[in-house]
């Protein structure tokens, strides 16, 4: 059976990258050469140089310092929002798929009603509804990320649950008299874990982009918050003259995403390996 031979390596690499990001997020603000909001740390809109690896922005702030200062915001928002959304969503979806019947129908109708609204529009609506007091607040954004992901994760996990539920060993379990909750936990969850972890990986990887896109459209975090996605949006006008202004934070974002992906991939492979030797 063709099996990913390097799985533990993926997990190790992923973990390594995430730890590095974690360190950067915690120590960054202290190790940065300049204060993140320090104007005229260098001449305005200069390209990358030894003193300013990512260049300077319109106010002369050192972009590298800003990026270092913003790590914890990105990681915090993305992880918190995704974890919340995935936890709630998968619980709902797995349960719904296993139980079936009326509860499933009702939950799915509600989920579909929210899913039917395009997610970005949904996010914009929530932000608009939150009112001026909350807008720009990180808590709102965690909520928005979770709200956007919840129905999607619910749907995917329900589909995974349905797929598993249709298999013979579940039927056998039911015949044995096991209840819906036990089946969810013992049969469905382990088998659906692979899909769920991919879901988490993809969603967690997208969360900072979602927050940055909301910033791009003017509905998300506001300047001068040094959030990477927002910085990329702020500096996109400088793309042709100072590409590092955009690619600097971009690389940091990308490596974070890669780290998350590798980590969860490794985890998912281990989880399904653990249940591969089951008997039908």
């Amino acid at each position: 059976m063709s099996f990913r031979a390097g799985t533990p390596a993926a997990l190790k690499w992923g973990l390594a990258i995430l730890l590095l990001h974690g360190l950067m997020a915690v120590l960054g603000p202290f190790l940065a050469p300049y204060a993140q909001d320090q104007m005229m740390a260098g001449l305005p809109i200069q390209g990358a140089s030894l003193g300013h690896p990512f260049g300077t922005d319109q106010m002369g702030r050192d972009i590298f310092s800003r990026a270092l200062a913003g790590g914890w915001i990105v990681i915090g928002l993305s992880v918190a929002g995704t974890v919340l959304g995935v936890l709630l969503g998968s619980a709902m979806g797995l349960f719904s798929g296993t139980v079936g019947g009326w509860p499933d129908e009702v939950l799915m109708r509600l989920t579909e009603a929210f899913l039917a609204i395009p997610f970005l529009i949904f996010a914009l609506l929530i932000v608009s509804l939150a009112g001026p007091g909350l807008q720009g607040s990180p808590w709102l954004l965690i909520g928005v990320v979770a709200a956007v992901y919840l129905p999607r994760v619910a749907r995917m996990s329900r589909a995974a649950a349905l797929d598993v539920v249709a298999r013979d060993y579940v039927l056998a379990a039911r015949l044995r008299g096991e209840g819906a909750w036990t089946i969810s936990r013992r049969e469905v969850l382990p088998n659906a874990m692979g899909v769920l972890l991919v879901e988490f990986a993809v969603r967690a990887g997208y969360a900072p982009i979602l927050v940055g896109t909301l910033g791009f459209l003017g509905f998300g975090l506001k300047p001068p918050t040094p959030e990477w996605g927002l910085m990329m949006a702020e500096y996109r006008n400088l793309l042709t003259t100072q590409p590092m202004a955009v690619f600097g934070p971009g690389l940091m974002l990308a490596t974070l995403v890669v780290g998350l992906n590798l980590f969860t991939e490794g985890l998912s492979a281990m989880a399904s390996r653990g249940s591969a030797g089951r008997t039908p």
Partner: protein
Amino acid sequence: MSFVRLIIARLVASVLTLLLVSVVVFTGVQGLPGDATARILGREAPQEARDRLRAELNLDDPLVQRYVRWAGAALKGDFGTSFASRQPVTDYLAPRLVNTLALSGLALLFYIPLSILPAIAQAPRPDRALDRSITVLTVAILSAPEFLSATLMLFAFAVIWPIFPPMVQLTAGMGWPAYLHALTLPALTLGLLLATYGVRLLRESLLEIYRSDFVRMAEFKGLSDRRILWRHVLPNALIPWMNATALNIAFMIGGVVVVEKVFAFPGFGSALVSALQLRDLPVISAGVMIAAAIFILVNLLADIGALIANPRLRSRQ
């Protein structure tokens, strides 16, 4: 339950969902803080002018009355009049919708090969060079925000190698070839962005199935790799992939906003965002409803497809 009854059940469910969405959307939209009249007339408009406009737009009637009026008219295809342009909402949204549907359709055409081909190249031989390099490329695109990828595509294919125009100019009577040419770059961008999800998911799905027992059985039976892939693995993997694709279509209708903004594309997404900023309530309500209706329809079709493909699902309960 018989197949036909399942389908009817799905249909009824869809209609109910649509109704639910209409209530949610309408109440949500009416609850938006901020004054439409101030945005439409500008900050220097005197209070009298604003009050006059308010009365014209019936903004002070009770909520339920406005909902009933709105829903009743919507069923007949009348989504009311835009606050800002004083034109029927359909006159403004319909061509925008056509444009975005055309864009999405073209994007879908790019998306299908762009997501399936790499995945089936990767899955049979995971962790080899091809798999890894495709993964790196996919992850690179995935980890960049859409506005960045779209901007890069814009510069690459409209400025550095000017094959396509940098902004979408749609004029009456431009003819199908010119129309498609104008749409190609944004559609390619959109298709590429969506494909990155599709590839990852399909690959995961394929690998999952490769691990399953019946594939082991097929290998024991001595079937060729190719046959296993195309006849046993792929069809089963396509189901979650199709589900994901259906969800991605919702992305295309709303999330295409970013691509629309970068390419100055007169589409549905940007109409909705500017309506949100203007608090043009009829346009917002109509727009979100239409997007939802399309999504529900696509989902219904996807569900039916799943039922056809996986007979086991039909025998639930």
